């Protein structure tokens, strides 16, 4: 079987995010970028399927600016066989990403699409679900375990109350949660090999997709600074404050 993995280039999780002074977004100039951590888990899962002999080919896909090639090289260094970049300077919202992925899926005909449950920059948690709906495929979201057998997949999902196990048909869109696996580090020899693996570039126009944003960002702000607490002298004062100030009892 063939597995398609979607990876997103985001601000590195160790970077302290700064909001742009004009409140239009976050500062990304000269900021370290890397692969969305949930997508690393998706790549790891796909590579493990290949190593287990279940998958025959792993194709990594990224969408966005030219520099997404670096993110794809990371996926290749982790073990993906080849990569596709859908290159555009345009802002891509989840619906546009899902539509573009649908066209890539149509070209590649994978049996499974793996992607992170959300990206750490916008935390939208939408792309996987939208893609499954557009394709009319089964979906297994928030996966912490994926088992493939007899043309079906058993997906253990992380839900609010605990773990839910679903059995779904292939082809499948699966989105990965943190506990699915521990992604490997790209080793130096594999980084060197990744340079020689094929990386193709497509454009939204070639795929016939209109990526115009459907949502408008009004304003981006820092979270409010947490106010300092106070010490109360006794329990009576605390009860009083809870009643009169916090009004919670």
């Amino acid at each position: 079987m063939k597995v398609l993995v979607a990876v997103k280039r985001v601000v590195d999780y160790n970077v302290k995010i700064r909001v742009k002074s004009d409140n239009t977004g976050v500062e990304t100039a000269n900021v370290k970028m890397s692969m969305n951590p949930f997508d690393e888990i998706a790549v790891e899962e796909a590579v493990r399927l290949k190593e287990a002999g279940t998958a025959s080919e792993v194709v990594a896909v990224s969408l966005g600016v030219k520099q997404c090639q670096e993110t794809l090289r990371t996926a290749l260094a982790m073990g993906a066989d080849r990569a596709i970049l859908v290159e555009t300077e345009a802002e891509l919202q989840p619906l546009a990403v899902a539509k573009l992925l649908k066209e890539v899926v149509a070209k590649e005909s994978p049996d499974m699409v793996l992607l992170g449950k959300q990206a750490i920059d916008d935390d939208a948690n939408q792309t996987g679900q939208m893609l499954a709906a557009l394709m009319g495929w089964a979906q297994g979201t928030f996966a912490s375990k994926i088992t493939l057998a007899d043309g079906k997949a058993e997906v253990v999902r992380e839900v609010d109350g605990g773990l839910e196990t679903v059995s779904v048909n292939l082809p499948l869109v699966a989105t990965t949660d943190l506990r699915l696996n521990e992604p490997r580090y790209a080793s130096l020899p594999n980084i060197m090999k990744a340079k020689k693996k094929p990386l193709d570039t497509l454009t939204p126009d070639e795929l016939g997709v209109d990526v115009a944003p459907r949502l408008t960002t009004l304003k981006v702000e820092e979270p409010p600074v947490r106010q300092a607490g106070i010490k109360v002298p006794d329990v009576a004062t605390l009860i009083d404050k809870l009643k009169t100030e916090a009004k919670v009892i």
Partner: protein
Amino acid sequence: MDDSLIPRRELDFLLFDLLEVERLAERPRHADHGRDTIAAMLDTAEALARDHFAPHNRKADEAEPRLENGRVVTIPEVGAALRRFSEAGFMAAVGDAEWGGLQVPYSVNLAINALFSAANISTMTYAFLTQAAANLISVFGSQAQKETWLPPLLAGDFFGTMALTEPQAGSSLADLRTRAEPQEDGSYRLFGAKIFISGGEHELARNIVHLVLARLPDAPPGVKGISLFLVPRFLPGPDGAPGEKNDIALAGLIHKMGYRGTTSTLLNFGEAEGATGWLVGEAGQGLAAMFHMMNESRVIVGNGAAALGHAGYRQSLAYARERAQGRPPGAKDPATPQVPILRHADVKRMLLAQKAYAEGALALTLYCGRLIDDEHTADDAPARAEARRLLDILTPIAKSWPSQWCLEGNNLAIQVLGGYGYTRDYPVEQTWRDNRLNPIHEGTHGIQAQDLLGRKVRQEDGAAFALLCDRIEATIAASRDTPPLASHAGALENILVRVRATTAGLLAAMAGGRAETALGHASVYLEALGHVVVAWLWLKQARVAQAGLDAAPAAAEHAFLTGKLAACHHFFAWELPRVGPWLDGLAVLDGTWASLPEDCF
């Protein structure tokens, strides 16, 4: 986020903007290592350093290796981190492809090592010793020795050591006594005691490859009688796998001030039948071979000291951003909130001094790394010879300057934290203790000074010194017309004229019968020339930073480059002026140190 890691922008600045390491990919040996590849390698290094080296830095300090039933017990995190390091290919980074190496440029590997060293220098030391042993075998070993030992060393399956020091022969290697007796099968049996052998015994690798200096039975006294031997902890069996234990006894562990995660050992070779070993290189050439490794090791020691300078800087900077104390001058209202101590000029002074030391030191060691690359792979023989010469004269400085001044930086890091800095609840005291080793090992400060003044400055009629001065003058000439840097260029030019005169004076004194007095001042000379060299490298950094600022970069980059210029300015305002009085003293060559009778102490 770990506060002690060296920021990526800093490494990128030094590697790509200052040293242009991506151009090394034009050379066949490094053809696979373009900028993208180097960046991806640094990504992996950073992730591993953060996830698997930094977290046990403190624990390894608190739980130093101990003996249990005759075996060395190390906390499990050390071995786990090194296994990941090896699996990711870092142990093989600079090795030849023929033996499983990746042919990463030396300069890039130094930057990678600095990242790991800032995170956890005592765990990194096992890796550095192993890489150094592999380098030595790849240069001096026989074909059979390479086949046997290089693949497992580069894979991190075996670790390496350097066994030079003996109880009676530390700085004075000429006096070492370990002896090697030839056997009929071409091997040797070694007998002798070695001390301060880092990584000398542990269970972290399947075998330990000791590179041991010893004397053959008919060897002349002194350094010419010293040969180099490869002596493994376990002798290879018929299949090459580690077999029977060699006759090497662990006589004890040494309890150090810092670098506590690295075992330091007393080893007795040949308590019974003799430890089996094999000659590496020619008989009598042991010290020359070892010095090949030592020279690179000395740059690596300086590089580690620079990394610890960065660690202390980042640790104290993080504290200064968070810790609120006092109010700005003029704000007397006690009802106003206190400000982070980073707002206070005196704290900024201590942080900028640390930045100038740490970033100046790393620029120096990576510059030397670039010279090592040029020495091996520059296009033509004259360029290689030139790199060799510059490296010769810069090596004692690259070892000593970071060791001395980044330790002073760590001292300031403690000061920034005040009382908390003096507790074991904060990392800066460990950083200082770790760094305190660096002026001592791989040749003490004094030995480096003797090497510089007694040997490097004089060799080839002063060719290396002249070349260094030429390089400094070229940077001065190029900076003279750049307005913000012109005054720095002028200051450096003035001091360089004096350095040349002082050097000539010292050489004349040595030739004129005052060698003992002159060499007694070698440490001062080392410090003076070291400051001049680092000032020069700061001027080079400032030129790159100024060019970047001229391109009107975004806010974060603007702040980074402005910080670079400020550190350069600090160095020229407060560090370079120290050189004048040192040169004054070197001109006088006061005889008190050399002449004072011992009973007057």
